[in-house]
């Protein structure tokens, strides 16, 4: 059997294994191990297991995932989240789906700091879904929102995806950050429109409340002022260069913890419970990363990414068709392998072709980012959807029926940026000419 055949066969078996009820991460590790052992050597494959496990667990970047989840947990257990949602309810509860809109805003900021889409979805699945339950929101809407909002931060600075793309392609990272802003805002607005339109059509999804007077609204402010102050402190600290976004996980969590202990909203027992639950949610996300790392190393030695890329670039087809094919490859590749790892693998191969076809490299980077956003919410490896399903104990069918409308607006966003490249290139050309 050729390496490519082995690779494709292993991927198919992995998908079949998913249906046996085995943990997805374990299925990926098993197939990655068997494939690598068959193609390279069993000794090497055994050693690879240990190395990949060790490497992912000790990496600095993944260490902060449980901390971000912990910030959400403490907010939930100490009632901070409740107060925030009560205030949001008083202010925008009269708009159909208002609380879902507030969640979009909160999660976008959170993801921009946290950097991990699954961790954002995990946190908001814990915090926002029960709150929306409280206001009788339909689970389709609430889980659909939290499963997709985590993706928005991929376009917003400081996006690690864009940083890595800039380094690979030798483009200015500052320009890429600027390029992501308009498409990111556009898709965020689409999300809000989806929520509004969907709730208008079906008011039971996100029931609107009466309109509250400004007096009643202002009364909720003292309760949330201090929390909003902490959040602005964290954002300000990042922008002002006092700490990095990864460090913000610790600083933010620490501040929320101190606040909760001082206000006696939470005791030490509550804190221990919060840490225990955060560790478990983070474990769930990180085991999937381990699985995709082992499987990814196997796929790498099959050379499938390189061969597919060479094939597409060599196709004698119209340029738009090649571009669509390339997006498609990113979509599938990013599903099995960690999407950042896949970008490092595939971008250098596609990049010269994109330039040759006459496309703008900066615009291509934004297109790739949108493709990655779509990739994390569609099957087979819809990590964010899985995470939300697991935490909220909601059936797949329900989460998915909530995800579709948002997915459509992501795809629509991609199409618009495809036909109007100016959306990505205009801001950088004005603010950072030359």
């Amino acid at each position, binding site marked *: 059997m050729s390496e490519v055949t082995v690779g494709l066969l292993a991927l198919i078996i992995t998908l079949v294994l998913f249906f046996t009820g085995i943990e997805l991460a374990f299925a990926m590790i098993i197939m990655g191990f068997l494939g690598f052992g068959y193609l390279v050597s069993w000794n090497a494959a*055994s050693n690879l297991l240990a190395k990949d496990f060790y490497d992912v667990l*000790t990496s600095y970047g993944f260490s902060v995932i449980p901390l971000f989840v912990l910030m959400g947990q403490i907010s939930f257990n100490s009632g901070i989240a409740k107060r925030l949602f009560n205030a949001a309810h008083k202010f925008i509860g009269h708009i159909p789906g208002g609380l879902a809109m507030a969640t979009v805003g909160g999660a976008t900021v959170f993801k921009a700091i946290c950097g991990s889409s699954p961790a954002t979805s995990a946190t908001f699945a814990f915090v926002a879904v029960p709150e929306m339950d409280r206001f009788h929101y339909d689970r389709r809407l609430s889980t659909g929102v939290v499963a997709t909002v985590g993706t928005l931060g991929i376009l917003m600075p400081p996006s690690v995806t864009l940083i890595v793309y800039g380094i690979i392609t030798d483009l200015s990272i500052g320009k890429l950050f600027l390029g992501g802003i308009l498409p990111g805002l556009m898709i965020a607005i689409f999300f809000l429109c989806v929520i509004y339109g969907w709730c208008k059509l079906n008011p039971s999804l996100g029931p609107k409340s009466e309109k509250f007077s400004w007096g009643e609204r202002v009364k909720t402010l003292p309760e949330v002022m201090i929390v909003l102050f902490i959040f602005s402190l964290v954002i300000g600290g990042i922008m002002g260069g006092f700490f990095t976004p990864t460090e913000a996980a610790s600083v933010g969590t620490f501040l929320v913890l101190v606040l909760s202990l001082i206000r006696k909203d939470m005791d030490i027992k509550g804190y221990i419970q919060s840490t*225990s639950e955060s560790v478990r949610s983070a474990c769930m996300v990180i085991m999937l990363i381990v699985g995709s790392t082992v499987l990814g190393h196997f796929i790498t030695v099959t050379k499938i990414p390189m061969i597919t890329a060479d094939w597409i670039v060599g196709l004698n087809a119209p340029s738009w068709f090649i571009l669509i094919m390339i997006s498609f490859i990113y979509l599938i590749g990013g599903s099995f392998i960690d999407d950042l790892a896949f970008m490092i693998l595939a971008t250098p191969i596609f990049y010269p072709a994109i330039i040759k076809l006459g496309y703008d490299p900066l615009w291509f980077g934004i297109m790739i980012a949108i493709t990655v956003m779509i990739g994390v919410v569609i099957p087979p490896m819809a990590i964010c959807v899985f995470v939300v399903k697991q935490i909220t104990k909601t059936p797949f069918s329900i989460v998915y029926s909530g995800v579709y409308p948002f997915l459509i607006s992501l795809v629509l966003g991609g199409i618009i940026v495809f036909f109007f490249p100016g959306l990505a290139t205009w801001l950088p050309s004005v603010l950072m000419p030359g």
Partner: protein
Amino acid sequence: MAGYLKFLEKLCMLMNVIAGTALTFIMLLTVSDVVLRYFGRPIVGTFEMVGLGGAIAIGFGIPVTSFYRGHIFVDFFVQRFPKGHQKLVHLVTRTASCTLFLWIGYNLFIYANDLFQSGEVSLTRQIPFYPIGYGIGLCCLVQCLVFIGDAMKILGGQYE
């Protein structure tokens, strides 16, 4: 069987608390580093200590996550099977997972031995790496005990 499951839960919870403590440690460490850095006296090597602490936070959390079936799986297909078939499928996946983690644990011990022999240490603080390797290896072995517990639950008809 009840005794074994009781013991297993206690063990997993204990490891969960260790994991939570590690998490608290990296939080406090980072906050101290950020504050002290402002005064020009950062805690040198925070970067690598957070990485190692995170390994404990995640590694020690693996068994408890499995104990409460917290890892992501897809069961809508299996649920359509008759009860007897379901049991069989679950037993097979538990056995496969148990074998996998035994093998990972064993290889992590070998890897930790290599780290010990070669004297590999962290870049700045020169903290030896091998204890972390043994630690994660141990977590994988405890994970196997969880799968044995799962098998008991399946045979006793208590698995979901």
